[in-house]
């Protein structure tokens, strides 16, 4: 048990989060530990987390995708565009939006896995291209989206707004898939040792292609949720989201070199960031101090994690 906590980021992060929340609840009893507050924290990180789940899969398989932020915008705008200008029925428009995202993932995956283009540049370039396309379809953004579309992101269940539920669904679903199905398990082999995976009969290229499609699709879903929540599709949605998400995922235990990470880590990483910035606002930290202190906390956290692992190694 202790081993788990000290070794596995998911657990150490959980413990850390609990500790921080406890302290915050004592210091800010009236503002921090309230249902409203947490409901809102969860809602605000739901979009990021859905993208983070896909990113986690990519990092497990040893890749990453910088274009997700743009895909969020593109999928949202494309869906809104179809509904608003062509009166396409909501479900169809949504499917089209996700399909659009998938195409982006396919292109990324194909060029990276089958043509051997450097993933960093490929996805960076795609980030620009897709952002451009989002601007193309939406101009300055699209308002007055159909009521039924807005309900997707704005209606509530048990006091929690839908995006939170979708997020939990995504996390649970992929946690299960990654733990329980051979297909998803393969990503660990690919990330751990591509050659070995290949020798073990895993079709590495195909799997890589899929990993990009999966993460792009999740980004698409996130984009559609976001614009439904906003009741509008803005081409500026998801700017800088890619780095935010990658940070959360690495914080959640993934490594850029691949082979490591658990899906719940994506949620925990995002939750950590969310709670920290929430506490900072509550603590009246504002202006540039926010960035400075957030940075310091990030580093401190990883440092603590390393420290615990060393302790564990000694004590074993």
């Amino acid at each position, binding site marked *: 048990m202790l081993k788990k906590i000290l070794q596995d980021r998911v657990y150490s992060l959980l413990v850390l989060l609990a500790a921080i929340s406890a302290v915050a609840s004592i210091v800010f009893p009236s503002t921090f530990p309230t249902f409203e507050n947490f409901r809102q924290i969860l809602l605000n990180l739901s979009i990021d987390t859905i993208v983070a789940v896909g990113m986690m899969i990519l990092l497990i398989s040893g890749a990453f995708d910088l274009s997700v932020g743009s895909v969020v915008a593109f999928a949202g705008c494309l869906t809104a565009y179809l509904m608003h200008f062509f009166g396409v029925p909501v479900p169809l428009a949504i499917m089209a939006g996700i399909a659009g995202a998938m195409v982006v993932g396919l292109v990324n995956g194909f060029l990276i896995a089958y043509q051997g283009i450097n993933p960093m540049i490929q996805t960076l370039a795609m980030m620009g291209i897709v952002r451009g396309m989002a601007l193309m379809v939406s101009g300055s953004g699209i308002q007055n989206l159909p009521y039924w579309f807005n309900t997707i992101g704005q209606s509530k269940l048990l006091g929690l707004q839908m995006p939170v539920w979708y997020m939990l669904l995504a996390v649970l679903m992929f946690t299960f898939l990654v733990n329980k199905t051979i297909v998803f398990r393969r990503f660990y082999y690919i990330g751990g040792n591509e050659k070995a995976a290949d*020798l*073990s009969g895993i079709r590495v290229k195909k799997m890589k292609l899929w990993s990009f499609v999966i993460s792009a699709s999740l980004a698409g879903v996130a984009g559609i949720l976001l614009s439904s929540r906003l009741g509008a599709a803005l081409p500026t949605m998801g700017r800088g989201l890619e780095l935010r998400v990658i940070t959360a995922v690495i914080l959640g235990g993934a490594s850029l070199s691949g*082979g490591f990470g658990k899906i719940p880590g994506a949620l925990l990483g995002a939750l950590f960031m969310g709670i920290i910035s929430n506490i900072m606002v509550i603590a009246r930290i504002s202006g540039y101090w926010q960035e400075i202190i957030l940075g310091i906390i990030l580093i401190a956290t990883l440092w603590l994690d390393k420290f615990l692992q060393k302790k564990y190694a000694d004590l074993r």
Partner: protein
Amino acid sequence: MRTIELQGISKTFPGVKALQGIDMLIHPGEIHAVCGENGAGKSTMMNILAGNLQPDAGRISINDQIVSLQSPQEAFEHGISIVHQHLSLVESLSIAENIFANQQPTNRFGFIQYKLLRQKTKVLLDQLDIQLDPTTTLSELSYAEKQMVEIAKALSKNPELFILDEPTASISAKETKILFNILKNLKQKGVAILYISHRLDEIFQIADRISILKDGKPQGTFPVAEISKELLIQKMVGRTLEETSDQSHRTGEVLLDVKNLSGEKFTNISFTLHCGEIIGLAGLIGAGRTEIARAIFGVEVKKGGEIIFKNESIVFDHPEEAIERGVAYVPEDRKHLGLFMDMSIRDNIIAASLKNARDGNLFSSAKATNMASSSKQSLNIAATGVDQIVRNLSGGNQQKVVLGKWLLTNPDVLIIDEPTHGIDVGARHEIYKILSKLASQGKGIIVISSDMAELLRLCDNIIVLKEGSKAGTLSRQDATEQKIMSLAAN
């Protein structure tokens, strides 16, 4: 029951004709050995059979059915499974997940059953008599333990054609014995076995027939009964090896004195290395030999004890100091600890002696090339040139590159972990010569080896380790395999 036939198999790599028109017939229930120098094309051939490489020409047929093995998966489907020379394992995963990679047991909904996975793994590990928890992460294993896991992985596929590419290169006699029993059983069951090894004694011990390769060309197939060791070597190397006299160069002068050294995995190790002496460290897997070496070399912190080198007590806190003072350590795991896989032979060989590759104060690539070329000469590394990328070298030649790197630092104390790990008879012969030459120059050498014949031949004294502590010392005179084993095992 499968009869596998290769007809006119050829394979060319940029700059190298790895295989040229190989014909071979492998019968069910036979152990078919493949011999050849480093770079002869053995692994290439096996990789082709395993669906990992595609031949440029020729065809493979199973029971007179021509098959195309486009991928490892297809090879599995034809009942072919292989123990790779360069292990096909994932460091970050558990033993169990490594063994059942991509074919974890699932329930009828297609969901992985981890309990069953662990059980099946345990069964296999017991079969191989490995005392390890299936959930152990691979990165915590020693190289030899990994080798055993690789074997278990191949076994788990219940192969009809079982290929082993130098499985014993880094395991000790105990494991080898276990492995051979398993092979014999499979043979009874009618499994065809292709066996590659540079340890000829093993081959004569278990093989039924021997096929010989040289420079990618077939040199014929012989029943073991009909070929002598000398002839085999003759056909492999293309010349006969003159016997070297292994007389001792041991002098009275103490070079390295290790007193009650203790560390993570070993305790109270003491021994004295004299100038010109070759000391062997014998022991089973996990005996802690590597750790001792690493502790002396300054890679791992020693928990206790003292190291006296050239009459002064020293503690190296980094290999840099060790190298400067004239201590060298050739690691066991060449792929992860020895080589810069994507760099040229040249850059690899000069890696530990960059300072000597200078002309004045500046790095001189000309000088570096000379240094590398001469090592390539003296170790005769089979490569297109010193600019060739090490990744593309055959296993044995890679090992020679690592050796070259350390010899270039010209150390007073040379510690070698599995020196002839995957090296062919010819080269092995050369390396032995090099070692005794170094000894004759008054250098001290510590050989860690799982190949007892090797230890017996080279060492003036053999220290046998058992679970991290010294079980005894045997001098050249009274050392025998039996004695070593009995000390090491029980």
